[in-house]
């Protein structure tokens, strides 16, 4: 017994020693309690530790569509332009300036001289041609490829379409050859025969800041440019069965294709051209005024041809990778962190403030918050502050919030009754008190349109119908589902086929809260109890894209580029992102008309007209404009809660002088 007792004592002593060792580790200073959330000791070196969310799926810019990857690409790779840290408008990157033709269907980018890859090779216009052709190749199968479909023949190339050619004359069949007079082909200026040199650029917008003294330069004439300005060629599906079916259904097409051969659309056919070493010209098949902002997207960022051809899909391995951004890869510890360091050969290296950025992986919001609180991380990603913590965190001076270029809405399956009746859809929209809903969510704004509120400056956003339960009941009655007042208060709508609708959402707590709110509103104001159905994320996305749901489903959309069209364009296709089954040629024509308009304000008005048309058709119920919210240590400067949570890292710095710190949200005003 005594022996065992001494054993106990020994172990206790060991535990005590271990305990004091733990205690000795404590060395962190917790400064200014209350004003900020957790520690505010700036790091000794110019290193930023950023909690970036998910593990990046790839370091190959056109591969991934995710935000964590986009932020890493912004450190490692450059495009023609970059996102302004506040407004997200295009700012010069590898292109010094750019010119636009008279209907925004041709863009000429003038590259800066002296830009280099991280291995010292010069960056030229040919690099852009290679990168964009690669990103659009069907074998490459980029998820983002659709973003570039405005480029002439890009969609055809990406879809492996074919041209039809006369084997005798070598003449290609053009769209005009088969266009029925009923549908006049609206051709963009970029596809019309060229006028006198430079005449297409008279009124053209000049980027970046519209300097009136610099005359637009269309770039030199080339055979390729002539080809782009020839009548648009007819493209057909490469799949023979599909093509034959199409041809059989259209007599005009059948005659035009008699005795023709089919040749595949190749990468050299798409509308991107290196006019000379420092000029890149894009020809678009439709006017796209937002294009100069779009090319900041990762799909258009440069990838190194030599390295890719040498190492194949291993080119992004740390030992092989060559980059072209303000930072280069230092280390990649998967599922842990990715470290980038300042690249001395970057053209603007003198203005890069940080020595390193550590991108941490963490998908769990409380875990990220903890890292931030103890000072292991300097900034956490957007949407990391849990809703339940807002009361504590909101008043802190390092809490960042701002409007987000993203919306939450409810899609309705308009292909199935009873929601195929616009009156029913309007009734369900008007029965929701969105102002109260936004209040319950605390940081978001109620939304009555399809574009986010307060994001696109100068955009005359139309308004959808307001909360009006009385009118909603009347509409539902008109549609054949009379709503009656119940004796004990409230309403009932006995004839409404509740079994034909559901509210479907992907399971997470905030979606569930939203679904329950909507269910309660509809029950209270219409007397209809819509069943709720929760699904795992990917299952849900699949069901919604294929219209494999009845009634209602949750919808969330964030901007791909800073233009209302990134939202309004969702309904220009029938499948996938549409999610409602609603498609209207008049709506598409309205959008096309708007995009062809060069005057910025006039275009916005036309876009707003299209949006109003969409809201009147009501294939969706707008719910809220979401909000950016995250935490940033006060000593991190040059980082703003911009609407897309994308940061141009070269502007970010560490400030050790506490009198220059950010106390509160730094202004987004220019």
């Amino acid at each position, binding site marked *: 017994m005594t022996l065992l007792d001494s054993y106990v004592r020994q172990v206790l002593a060991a535990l005590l020693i271990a305990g004091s060792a733990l205690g000795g580790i404590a060395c962190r200073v917790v400064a200014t309690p209350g004003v900020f959330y957790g520690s505010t000791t700036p790091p000794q070196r110019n290193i930023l530790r950023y909690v970036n969310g998910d593990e990046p*799926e*790839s370091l190959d810019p056109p591969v991934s569509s995710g935000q964590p990857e986009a932020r890493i690409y912004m450190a490692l790779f450059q495009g023609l332009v970059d996102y302004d840290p506040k407004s997200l408008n295009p700012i010069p990157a590898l292109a010094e300036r750019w010119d636009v033709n008279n209907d925004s269907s041709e863009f000429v980018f003038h590259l800066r001289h002296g830009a280099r890859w991280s291995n010292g090779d010069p960056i030229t216009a040919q690099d852009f041609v290679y990168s964009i052709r690669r990103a659009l190749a069907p074998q490459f199968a980029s998820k983002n490829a659709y973003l570039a479909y405005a480029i002439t023949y890009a969609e055809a190339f990406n879809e492996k379409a074919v041209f039809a050619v006369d084997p005798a004359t070598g003449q290609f069949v053009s769209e005009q050859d088969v266009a029925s007079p009923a549908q006049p082909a609206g051709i963009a200026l970029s596809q019309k025969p060229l006028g006198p040199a430079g005449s297409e650029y008279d009124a053209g917008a000049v980027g970046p800041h519209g300097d009136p003294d610099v005359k637009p330069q269309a770039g030199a004439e080339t055979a390729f440019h002539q080809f782009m300005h020839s009548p648009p060629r007819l493209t057909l599906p490469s799949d023979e069965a599909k093509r034959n079916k199409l041809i059989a259904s259209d007599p005009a097409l059948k005659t035009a294709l008699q005795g023709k051969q089919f040749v595949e659309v190749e990468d050299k056919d798409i509308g991107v051209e290196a006019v000379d070493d420092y000029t890149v010209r894009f020809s678009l098949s439709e006017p796209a005024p937002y294009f100069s902002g779009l090319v900041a997207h990762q799909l258009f960022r440069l990838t190194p041809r030599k390295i890719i051809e040498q190492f194949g899909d291993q080119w992004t391995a740390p030992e092989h990778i060559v980059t072209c951004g303000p930072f280069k890869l230092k280390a990649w510890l*998967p599922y842990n962190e990715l470290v980038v360091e300042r690249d001395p050969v970057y053209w603007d290296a003198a203005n890069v403030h940080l020595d390193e950025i550590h991108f941490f992986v963490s998908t769990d919001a409380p875990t990220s918050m903890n890292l931030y609180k*103890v000072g292991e991380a300097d900034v956490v990603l957007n949407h990391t502050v849990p809703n339940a913590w807002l009361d504590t965190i909101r008043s802190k001076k390092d809490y960042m919030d701002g409007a987000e270029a993203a919306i939450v809405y409810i899609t309705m399956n308009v292909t199935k009754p009873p929601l195929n009746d616009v009156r029913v859809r309007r009734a369900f929209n008007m029965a929701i008190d969105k102002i109260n809903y936004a209040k319950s969510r605390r940081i978001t704004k109620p939304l009555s349109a399809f574009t986010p509120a307060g994001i696109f400056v100068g955009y005359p956003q139309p308004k959808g119908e307001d909360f009006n339960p009385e009118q909603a009941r009347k509409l539902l009655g008109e549609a054949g589902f009379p709503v009656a007042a119940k004796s004990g208060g409230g309403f009932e709508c006995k004839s409404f086929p509740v079994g034909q609708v559901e509210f479907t959402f992907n399971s997470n707590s905030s979606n569930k809260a939203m679904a329950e709110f909507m269910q309660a509103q509809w029950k209270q104001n219409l007397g209809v109890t819509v069943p709720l159905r929760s699904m795992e994320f990917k299952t849900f996305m699949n069901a919604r894209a294929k219209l494999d749901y009845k009634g209602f489903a949750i919808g969330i959309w*964030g901007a791909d580029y800073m233009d209302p069209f990134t939202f309004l364009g969702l309904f220009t296709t029938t499948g*996938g992102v549409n999610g409602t089954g609603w498609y209207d040629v008049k709506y598409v024509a309205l959008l096309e008309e708007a995009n062809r308009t060069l005057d910025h304000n006039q275009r916005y008005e036309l876009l707003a007209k299209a949006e109003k048309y969409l809201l009147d058709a009501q294939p969706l119920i707008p719910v809220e404009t979401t909000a950016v919210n995250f935490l940033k240590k006060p000593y991190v400067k040059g980082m703003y809660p911009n609407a897309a949570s994308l940061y141009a890292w070269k502007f970010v710095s560490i400030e050790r002088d506490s009198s220059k710190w950010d106390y509160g949200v730094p202004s987004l005003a220019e």
Partner: protein
Amino acid sequence: MLRFIIRRLLITVPTILVVLTITWALVRLAPGNFYSNEKAVPAAIEKNIREKYGLDKPWYQQYWKTMRGIVRLDFGTSLKYEGESVNAIIARSLPVSATVGILAYLLALVVGIFAGSIAALHPNSKRDYASMTLAMLGISIPNFVLGPILVFVFALTLYWLPPSRWNGFFSRNLILPVLTLSGLYMAYIARLTRAGMLEVLRSDYIRTARAKGLSEWQVVTRHALRGGLLPVVSYTGPALAFLVTGTVVVERIFVLPGLGNYFIQASLNRDEPLIIGIVAFIAITLLLANLVVDIAYAYLDPRIRY
């Protein structure tokens, strides 16, 4: 003995193939794809992706391709993480999981056996009640509760330890996950040890040992512990296999780049090769661990012969 081992190994192979076939089918049946995310891809792009990864081929061809790879222990490349081989991911994340798991189990063994022995040697004493109450708590508090409590106390309040993340082997980042993970096992081992020891201490050979005049220390360490620990040993095999191959919850709470974290992520990503690779690895480890336990049994208990 050798025949026993060979026989066991031979049953293992079909078991694993069945497990993997079921896994493969389940992944296929789950709606959604590795490429589906919040922005649905247009049909043409979906077609490109399916062709690139051979998903346009008939299911039996795809099944055959997967199984052929598995037989050669080549699980292919991840669908989500471009160009990364599944074998490389397992090789990279296993040491992380194993370090945390083995450290946690060692801690659990030391503390558990110690507490269990004390309790057994003084049945119904205060020490017994104290250690068994603690053990009961350890079993009833799940690690997703214990972890955050430890983080709250040691990281967020005292600022002693980092709250999460991997920082290399044997860094102080490991202390909290190891403690969290060992809690349950510690408690379980304490109870197993107590029960086993109580039974053994009453047996004839212990009385013989005492009658021989051996000191209490020798009786306990040489004779009682050896027999009393048998339940712990049979528990060690599967427990260690699970610990080493990653503990989903703890790796998630502490953001450790281990197998468990990859496993969860792979399922959410519908990353078929990675899911199958990790399931195969866990299944093999588990079956081997059980085999080792059976062998250890024969060594520890002279009455058992195969």
